[in-house]
């Protein structure tokens, strides 16, 4: 699979070619071309901002539908902790877990159980690897992708541990093979996810060669299907929960850090804030920090685009739910520890370089600077690029031309029409039109009409 695979898809019929998504994209990965918003896969980090902001719902997340369960003989649900935060007055996670069995899953393995193992492994990592501190959480796949393309200096700080969903998937798979006696391919490990970035992770993981998650369902889909079953879960419910406060807390920003028993941490959420923290980390503005937790979505995973509830309300619900839980229920035992560490390294992908080498990049950066002085600096987005500078970069990369700027075009049209006027006004009433004058006039008219056509380009 392409290493720049991403799970945001454009529904062209719904796209109006407006500028909402190009303005919001934190890596400037989107351009409107021929009236439709196109994503540059190399720049996209799967943050989901374009999905969130599109008023026409043209940007859509890619994930699986519930009927994928039919492809397997035995299925295991991996509910993200953020799933629990979607329901009103839920006081026992067993209701959700048992309802998942009624829905058709053969087994349930909480992602929060995997999270508790990751917390334990992280506590150990922080004491054993002081040279790489502060460690940056790698649970949010968008953050890892962002660092991979923009912050090469921080790659050594990445916590080299699998995210909770992967740890849970591997343990769930072992248990499923043991219980069912079935071969791997007949077992479906199904993650119930708050965000499409996790779908990307399962198809093209970073830090491990292959993910054991087979399918990814959206919390917003499962939520509706679960409600009727949750009502019928009785007192005879099975005990399926494997996690306590630490695991459940991972669903919100600051939750992961709170399970590390250190005060020397920073937790930031929301992609713009994450970028600011990474910039400052790169300049070594924080000292003495041990751990940096970063979540691309506001509020953490509860703010994912595949959730239903307002993230801050969800956070409050999670807080209430965990109140009477034990601190943690899952601990690394025996061989379990081996599923936690990464087995592949993250490599820097220099996708934002202006040229193929430093000389070419220098030449192009000079051109960008000169172009920026001539462009209007309004960042209006009419050209399809988010800013004048982004258009200038597209121009020097050879993807666009100055005439994509409507202000540029307007000036050029003014100049042409002035020249036509000067030519024609010079003609006396009785002058014989010589061939040359008529030829020049025709040429001007053609250029005006060509440039007018450019103005129409991109209109739906």
């Amino acid at each position, binding site marked *: 699979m392409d290493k720049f695979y991403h799970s945001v898809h454009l529904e062209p019929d719904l796209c109006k070619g407006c500028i909402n998504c190009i303005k919001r994209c934190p890596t400037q990965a989107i351009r409107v071309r021929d009236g439709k918003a196109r994503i540059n896969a190399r720049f996209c980090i799967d943050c989901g901002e374009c999905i969130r902001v599109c008023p026409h719902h043209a940007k859509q997340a890619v994930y699986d539908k519930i009927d994928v369960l039919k492809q397997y003989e035995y299925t295991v649900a991996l509910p993200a902790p953020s799933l629990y935060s979607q329901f009103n007055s839920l006081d026992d996670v067993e209701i959700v877990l048992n309802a998942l069995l009624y829905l058709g899953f053969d087994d349930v393995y909480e992602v929060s159980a995997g999270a508790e193992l990751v917390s334990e492994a992280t506590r150990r990592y922080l004491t054993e690897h002081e040279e790489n501190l502060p460690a940056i959480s790698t649970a949010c796949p968008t953050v890892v992708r962002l660092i991979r393309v*923009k912050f*090469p*200096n921080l790659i050594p700080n990445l916590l080299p541990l699998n995210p909770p969903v992967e740890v849970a998937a591997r343990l769930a798979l072992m248990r499923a093979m043991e219980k069912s006696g079935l071969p791997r391919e007949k077992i479906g490990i199904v993650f119930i996810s708050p965000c499409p970035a996790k779908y990307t992770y399962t198809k093209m993981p970073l830090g491990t060669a292959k993910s054991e998650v087979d399918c990814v369902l959206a919390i917003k889909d499962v939520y509706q299907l679960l409600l009727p079953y949750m009502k019928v879960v009785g007192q005879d419910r099975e005990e399926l929960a494997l996690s306590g406060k630490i695991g459940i807390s991972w669903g919100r920003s600051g939750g992961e850090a709170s399970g590390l028993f250190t005060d020397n941490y920073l937790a930031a959420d929301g992609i713009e804030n994450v970028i600011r923290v990474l*910039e400052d980390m*790169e*300049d*070594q*503005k924080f000292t003495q920090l041990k751990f940096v937790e970063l979540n691309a979505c506001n509020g953490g995973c509860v703010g994912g685009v595949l959730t239903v509830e307002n993230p801050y309300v969800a956070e409050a619900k999670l807080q209430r739910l965990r109140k009477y839980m034990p601190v943690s229920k899952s601990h690394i035992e025996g061989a379990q520890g081996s599923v936690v560490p990464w087995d592949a390294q993250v490599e*820097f992908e*220099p996708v*934002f*370089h*202006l*040229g193929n*080498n*430093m*000389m070419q*990049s*220098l*030449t192009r*950066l*000079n051109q960008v*600077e000169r172009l920026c002085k001539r462009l209007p600096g309004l960042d209006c987005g009419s050209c399809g690029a988010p800013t004048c500078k982004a258009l200038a970069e597209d121009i020097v990369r050879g993807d666009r031309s100055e005439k994509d700027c409507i202000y540029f075009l307007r000036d050029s049209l003014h100049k042409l029409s002035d020249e036509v006027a000067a030519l024609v006004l010079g003609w006396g009433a009785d002058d014989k039109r010589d061939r040359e004058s008529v030829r020049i006039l025709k040429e001007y008219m053609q250029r005006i009409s060509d440039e007018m056509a450019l103005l129409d380009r991109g209109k739906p």
Partner: protein
Amino acid sequence: MDDKIVFTYDVPADDFSRAGEASSDVKSKLKQLGTPPDAVRKVAIAMYEGEINMVIHANGGTITVEISPRQVRMVLRDRGPGIPDVDLAMQEGYSTAPDEIRNLGFGAGMGLPNMKKYTDEMHIETELGVGTTITMTVNL
């Protein structure tokens, strides 16, 4: 063919909230140029320290950055009070920053030492009552 590029920044006096803008802009440009990550980090740190110093001690000034495939050269020029004892100022932990600056978490006396540590060459020209010019080079 352009074999180098030059940027000039005005560092405003007394506007602490804008301190660091110039170094952050240079950092993003170096990244676009494909400068080796380690050099980007050195330039970003050294220039940030210098920029903050200009705001704290010297009422701002100008920074000129020249980038070529061989090196990044930064010239930080101010018309501040000048440095009375350069050797003393270069000592780790020595600081003349006022209390209100220290309260913001600056003034630890690591500015000049860090600038030296993260650059391949550093040269200070200073005259009391006239100003200070610091030239720093990071080789690529």
